[in-house]
């Protein structure tokens, strides 16, 4: 007998359930697989982004180093722009470098690619040669990540500049407010007080939505500051030494100029003193009259000689021993001639020591002037006079000047007295030749 199989309504249901189960498992497996791949791709995206930023910053570092290796005036893109591309490690970059809108400014736009990630970076750089820094200072005024689709071209740069200018203007507009807030917050070490200072409510209600950002300047907090200060101890800034106080420093510039002026002055004073001495000698020198060289005698000596000569001539004529001298040999005149040469000889005796002393002193003073001039010339040689040297030379010059002035006054006084004596004796009424004859 053939077995009979009962055909049931369950035939084929097992297959359907199994198929459904397999499909479900396959779906779950696909989800798990996709999540796993996504984890990898997320990681690769982050890694790629960081590497792309590193490549862009390497471009910045290279260009910055090149820019800092020459004075700003010698930058290679001056008046123009520089565009280029290169690679760094596992990435590549394109850049555009151009002068910025302000003086000593430059804009740098870099697009860098690494591991299929692309970033566009912007720097506004500013040089500052007006410092005593031992490094060329090129600082970053502004830095941002731009849209990765920004073209690295002058047009792209121009578009970014508008954003940058706007951001810089806003930053500057907020600066004072922000600094004042920082100033007030700095000494506060209590959170509740800080919240009050910043205008944050203690238990603010939770809003239903995040309100849009408020543009424009917040109300000014600028008012008198109050509250205890809790700033940490600041470093003591010492008083660094001033220029003075060093041993034997070089003469200060005003002293050098004064010294040079003194040098000029003593030269002319020496010449003046020498002239005075010559004049004095010419008027009251005591050397005996030499008929063969009458120009070498002094005025007063010639007075005496001429007086005596005329007297002798008149006496000879009276005794008919000589020719007619052609002179007035009247008794009155002869008396005056006598009085004149007597006065001159007496004056020579009386005033001679004083005159000799004055003229000797003048010689000495001239010698001192010459010595001082030599010393000043020596001081003028490199490295120039020190402060103490300049002072000493000035003092010496002042001393010699004072002495020279005194001697000049004394000599004029002596001369005046002698002249008055001879005038009183009538020497100048006789018409005697006093000027030294020309050779």
């Amino acid at each position, binding site marked *: 007998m053939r077995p009979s199989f009962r055909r049931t309504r369950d035939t084929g249901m097992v297959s359907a359930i199994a198929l459904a189960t397999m499909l479900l498992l396959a779906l779950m497996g696909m989800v798990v697989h996709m999540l796993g791949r996504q984890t990898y791709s997320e990681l690769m995206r982050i890694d790629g982004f960081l590497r792309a930023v590193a490549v862009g910053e390497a471009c910045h570092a290279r260009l910055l180093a090149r820019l800092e*290796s020459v004075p700003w005036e010698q930058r290679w893109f001056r008046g123009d722009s520089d565009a280029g591309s290169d690679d760094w490690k596992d990435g590549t970059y394109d850049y555009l470098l151009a002068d910025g809108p302000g003086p000593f400014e430059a804009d740098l736009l870099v697009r860098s690619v690494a591991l299929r990630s692309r970033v566009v970076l912007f720097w506004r750089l500013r040089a500052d040669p007006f410092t005593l820094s031992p490094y060329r200072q090129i600082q970053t005024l502004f830095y941002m990540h731009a849209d990765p689709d920004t073209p690295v071209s002058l047009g792209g740069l121009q578009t970014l500049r508008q954003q940058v200018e706007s951001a810089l203007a806003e930053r500057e507009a907020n600066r004072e407010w922000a600094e004042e807030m920082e100033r007030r917050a700095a000494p506060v070490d209590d959170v509740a007080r800080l919240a009050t200072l910043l205008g944050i409510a203690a238990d603010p209600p939770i809003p239903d939505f995040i309100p849009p950002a408020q543009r424009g300047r917040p109300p000014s907090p600028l008012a008198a500051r109050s509250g205890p200060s809790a*700033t940490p101890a600041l470093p003591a800034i010492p008083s660094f030494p001033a220029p003075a106080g060093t041993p034997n420093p070089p003469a200060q510039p005003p002293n050098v100029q004064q010294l040079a002026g003194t*040098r000029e002055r003593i030269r002319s004073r020496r010449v003046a003193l020498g002239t005075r001495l010559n004049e004095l000698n010419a008027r009251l020198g005591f050397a005996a009259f030499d008929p063969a060289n009458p120009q070498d005698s002094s005025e007063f000596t010639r007075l005496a000689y001429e007086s005596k000569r005329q007297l002798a001539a008149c006496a000879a004529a009276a005794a008919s021993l000589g020719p007619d001298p052609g002179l007035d040999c009247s008794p009155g005149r002869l008396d005056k001639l006598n009085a004149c040469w007597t006065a001159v000889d007496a004056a020579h005796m009386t005033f001679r020591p004083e005159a000799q002393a004055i003229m000797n002193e003048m010689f000495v003073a001239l010698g001192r002037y010459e010595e001082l001039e030599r010393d000043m010339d020596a001081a003028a040689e490199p*490295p120039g006079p020190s402060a103490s040297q300049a002072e000493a030379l000035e003092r010496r010059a002042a001393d010699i000047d004072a002495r020279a002035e005194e001697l000049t006054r004394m000599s004029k006084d002596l001369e005046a007295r002698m002249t008055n004596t001879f005038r009183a004796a009538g020497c100048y009424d006789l018409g005697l030749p006093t000027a030294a004859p020309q050779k």
Partner: protein
Amino acid sequence: MVEVLVVASIVALAFLPMIDVFRSGSRQLEQTQPYHQAVFLGEKCLEESRLGAEEDPYFLSRLLVDGYGAEPAPVTGGRHPFFAVLEDTAVPWGRIEPSEDGAIQKESGPLHDQVEPFIAAVQSNLTQGSPPQPPEAEARVQFDWIDGRDKAMRYELIAAVRVWVPRTKVEVPVPAGEELELAKAIEPGATQGIGALAAARGADAEKLRAVAKLLVYGREARSTAERATALAATLRAEVLGASEGPARDGKALRLGRLDEAMAARTCSLLQQMRPPLEALAQALPPGALGEPAPSKALLTEAVELVRLTLDGFQKSVGAALADYGALARQEFVPSGWRPSLHVALLRLAKMAALTYPWPDRKPLHAYLAELAAYYRGRMPHMVHFCEQEDQLVESLEQTWPLSAAAADARKAREAYAAAAMKLLLYSAPPAPQ
């Protein structure tokens, strides 16, 4: 029955790969998780390197020569210098010290478990660029760990590190001192250069050019000083008259910068004036300036201009020290100002020490010690900078890049007296008998 058996075997065959898929998904998570950690840890190290290079000119040598962070060390327990401390966990607040505050310890919670497997090392490299590119430096951060399969894994990230380029001259733009410009300084209507003028007058070209340079650069110093002095007086009055606040601070900073700018400009000019001053100081024989010689008034003007420049330089350095110092002593200045103020004071003090002799350099040592104490626990790179600077104080003449510029200013001053005497006493040669 047969159907059930067939379906069961198909399901069994399909189930096994599914298990593998689920297991591989879990393995992927286990493998990528350390990479995620390494990426963020690496970025932290690179940011630290960038910051160090920005704040401390000696940071690169710290990496290259001292091997700062080069030795592989675990990230946890404060054993690697780049991860020495995590946060300010102990008094005194506001200072983060490796010996006092917390590194990544077990007490840090899940963070410790996440980063515990990592061994960090920061290698550095300096390569000579091909001209005109200067040398380049890079910091290579690597993290090693053993993954779940006991396999050694490594993650590496590289970043460029700033190379500080020193300069030996102050480079404020000054007149170029071109031939015609020099000639016009002696003779305003000149149409040829100074060389031709000297030949026409029978002058020593070197001496005549020297006098012309003193006039050109000295006039530049005078006109700049006139403008700056007026502006400085206005700013100073405003600062003195203003009450405490951002407006006053801004003006005080501008004043200090103006003083330093003047010092830099006069230093630039003195760099140019030194050679002609030394040439004139050596010798200026009668007739060296030709016939007709420059007038007495012109020579006196040259001497006066040099005096103004020398005095201006000294005064500007002193004024900048005073103004920056006053600002640095204030209880409050906006954040970010203080380090740059302190560094500015340091460079001005060094310039002062090199241009006019100090009894000793103790004030510089004292100042650097104060700065190091102030920045300890706040800005570690500034502390390193101060420590390096302190070691170089006694050898500034050999080590400071701008010592040559300082020497120019000092030598110009030393040559001034002799040159001034020669110019003021210059005379034409005596007429032949």
